[in-house]
């Protein structure tokens, strides 16, 4: 007699190690953070001007959110619901800037806007009236390279909205303007909120951009402490603060959405009629291409131009020396993505067979931890418990696993949700055991979703900087780490640009594959 278990041995075998690596680092930080004298901590917090720093990070995250939504939301509406010229091309191009990590964006705009950069020289002035090295400058960069999050979520929601809802509103006598304010926008609320939230938390937890632009935030203070001193208490306390506010924001989002339902998907709903922009269409056209110029065309052009300034032979010799770092990035990202996908698949599959949902719930926690915090927590935790992992590239793979198993899990769940349980039952009734049925039927059918999930985690791991910087073993640099070190030590010179271009091109291929696989429903984060 088989007994239904909430926790099968296989489920435990998969969930326990991952849970260990999620809970462990956080627990370690909380423990370290609480270990110090309260008075002592307050005094040091005053020395650091901690309140001012927190306020500054909050301002940065808010500005970033407003700026990213201002770029992404109108663009989503224009490409999905209006007769904007070349809207298909724009719709395909708009998410591509996600292939440019914001720290590379910072590098690009340093080349362009820093004192003595291309723009000031072109204008014949030494520097610009607003410095790039400020909260406003960091928000400018972060907004430019995170706007695809609100864009993807809002355009996806606009595509899914049943036009019959808007027609019903017209039918009861609402004017087109009232339909927009009372039906369309309220229906977009959750996706708008979700997109804004991703950007806000990105700005809140960013390390790459603010470090390059010399803006003091919680993450840069944590990193300075980790590098400079052997003192764990203060960075641990700051990490707990950083994570606590992150989780608070996530909980607020859950509350804000409440119990109302917003999805209204009808199988054969016809697409909504496009709104004719009339004379406005060329202004809208200029706006759309303006956004893409700032976020995609200009960065690629600047990087390309910067690379071309160095003689080809020098560049070749330089890139050859950097080859090991590229290999480091590649294999750790491949290993991280593969491991995350296998575990996510195991959990997703077992969840359909009675595994408690608290397992996947646990992983969402890992997703909410800022990279800097996870790096610090994991380094300390591994050092204390598994020293044979600490100081090896395995630690990096564990970091990628904890940070990105959630998107892998979401991709697996989305793929499995497409399958009616009767498909697998049919295979069982035809004489296949559970594993044989999975191999013969389920696996081939969910393969596209698995490939998409793998590519997503691969891209995210390839570009990860903050956790990698702290967790990597001495001498084991990845491409993002090399780019960051170059840009910090030497500045945005041609060699850094060459590495950045190499990384962008490596990411761009799988990323555009993902987009063409119509993965737009899944929200990749940080």
């Amino acid at each position: 007699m088989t007994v239904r278990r909430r926790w099968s041995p296989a489920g435990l075998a998969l969930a326990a190690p991952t849970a260990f690596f999620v809970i462990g680092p956080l627990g370690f930080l909380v423990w370290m953070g609480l270990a110090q004298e309260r008075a002592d901590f307050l005094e040091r917090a005053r020395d650091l001007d901690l309140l001012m720093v927190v306020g500054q990070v909050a301002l940065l995250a808010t500005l970033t959110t407003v700026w990213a939504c201002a770029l992404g939301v109108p663009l989503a509406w224009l490409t999905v619901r209006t007769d904007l010229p070349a809207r298909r091309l724009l719709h395909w191009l708009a998410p591509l800037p996600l292939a440019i990590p914001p720290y590379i964006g910072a590098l690009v705009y340093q080349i362009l806007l820093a004192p003595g950069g291309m723009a000031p020289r072109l204008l014949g002035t030494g520097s610009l009236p607003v410095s790039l090295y400020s909260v406003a400058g960091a928000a400018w960069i972060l907004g430019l390279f995170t706007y695809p999050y609100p864009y993807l979520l809002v355009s996806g929601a606009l595509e899914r909205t049943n036009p019959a809802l808007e027609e019903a509103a017209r039918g009861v006598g609402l004017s087109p303007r009232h339909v927009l304010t009372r039906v369309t926008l309220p229906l977009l609320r959750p996706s708008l909120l979700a997109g804004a939230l991703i950007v806000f938390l990105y700005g809140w937890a960013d390390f790459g951009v603010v470090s390059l632009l010399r803006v003091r935030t919680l993450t840069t203070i944590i990193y300075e402490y980790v590098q400079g001193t052997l003192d764990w208490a203060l960075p641990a306390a700051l990490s707990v603060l950083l994570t606590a506010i992150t989780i608070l924001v996530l909980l607020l989002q859950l509350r804000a959405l409440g119990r109302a339902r917003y999805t209204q998907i009808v199988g054969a709903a016809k697409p909504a009629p496009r709104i004719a922009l009339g004379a406005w269409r060329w202004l809208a056209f200029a706006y759309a291409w303006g956004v893409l110029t700032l976020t995609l065309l200009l960065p690629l052009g600047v990087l390309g131009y910067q690379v071309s300034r160095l003689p080809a032979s020098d560049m070749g010799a330089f890139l050859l020396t950097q080859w090991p770092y590229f290999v480091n990035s590649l294999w750790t990202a491949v290993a991280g993505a593969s491991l995350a996908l296998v575990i996510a698949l195991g959990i997703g599959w077992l969840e359909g067979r009675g595994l408690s949902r608290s397992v996947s719930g646990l992983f969402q926690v890992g997703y909410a931890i800022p990279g800097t915090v996870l790096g610090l927590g994991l380094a300390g935790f591994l050092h204390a418990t598994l020293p044979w992992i600490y100081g090896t590239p395995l630690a990096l793979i564990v970091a990628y696993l904890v940070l990105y198993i959630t998107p892998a899990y979401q991709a697996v769940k989305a793929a499995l949700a497409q399958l009616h349980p009767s498909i697998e039952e049919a295979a069982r009734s035809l004489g296949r055991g559970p594993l044989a049925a999975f191999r013969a039927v389920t696996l081939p059918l969910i393969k596209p979703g698995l490939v998409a999930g793998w590519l997503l985690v691969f891209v995210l791991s390839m570009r990860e900087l903050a956790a990698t910087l702290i967790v990597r073993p001495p001498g084991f640099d990845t491409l993002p780490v090399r780019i960051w070190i170059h840009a910090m030590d030497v500045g945005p010179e041609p060699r850094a640009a060459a590495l950045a271009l190499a990384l962008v091109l490596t990411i761009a291929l799988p990323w555009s594959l993902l987009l063409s696989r119509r993965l737009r429903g899944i929200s990749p984060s940080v």
Partner: protein
Amino acid sequence: MELLALDRVTKRYAPDRPPAVDALTLTVEQGEILALLGPSGCGKTTTLRLIAGFEVPDSGRVVIRGATMAGPEGWIPPEARGVGIVFQDYALFPHLTVAENVGFGLHHFGRTARQERISQILELVGLGSFARRYPHELSGGQQQRVALARALAPAPALILLDEPFSNLDADLRAQMREEVERILRNTGTTGIFVTHDQEEAFTLAARVGVLNEGRLEQLDAPETIYHHPATLFVAEFVGAADFLPGLVTPYGIVTELGVVANTGAWKIGEKVKVMLRPDDITFVPSSVGDGMIIRRDFRGSETLYCIRLPSGHRVHSSQASSSLYPNGTRVRAEVHLIHVVTFPA
């Protein structure tokens, strides 16, 4: 020979809810076609899933061909039961061709034996020329046939059909019903199908089991179910029925519409309900009649009248479609009962 036996099988999904299947006992003979009929939520699909092995019973025993599939001594997984299933949504494998779908259960066969069996079965269901198509390239009726062929290919002892015709258009439904019956009888396959459609159950099955809230209310030939319903639920669920109160007297059971025979051996003085089917009641228009037509439903082959009696009770009468009386017509209703069915009041 007894092919399937369920012995007091009980399945409960949640401890605080009534069981989905409650001490169900029934047997199915080799080659028989049995229908399980009942409203949604009556436990008929759960019963199928218990037989197939997708659910584990809390207690009781499932026996197929004398071997215990589920019971105190153990549980056999679905893949080892040799039970074919046709799912309501067909559950065809979209990444496999028709031939590969049909051959899916033949993985123990040799290559040539498999090919032969596939073409044989596809001929049987009339899809010989569709072997290389994919499921999405077929019509609903063709998909259904593939699902049936796939389930039949490994020559299962028993085939289960879960609302097999509910996804088909009405005209196709009647055609597929005949075809499925022909195929099952030609192959000598024992079949159990569940449905909420009594017409489907009556035309296809030799015996019909009526389920209500997880319990088997009656298991009998269709005629018996209709004319001699064992319970009030069966009487109401199968076919239309009205009930008139009656008083048992030495001369028979006295009702508002006359006296009917006391076939139920009720004691004198007892109060009962007498079941009246629409075809048990006729009426003649009469200016002194005390009934009144209050509703007329034209149904094509028949016209159904609703008549209000002086007591306020309503009865229905089925008449030829050529019969036309407007609402408000005064009538005298008469009862012609061949089968007297009574229940305690």
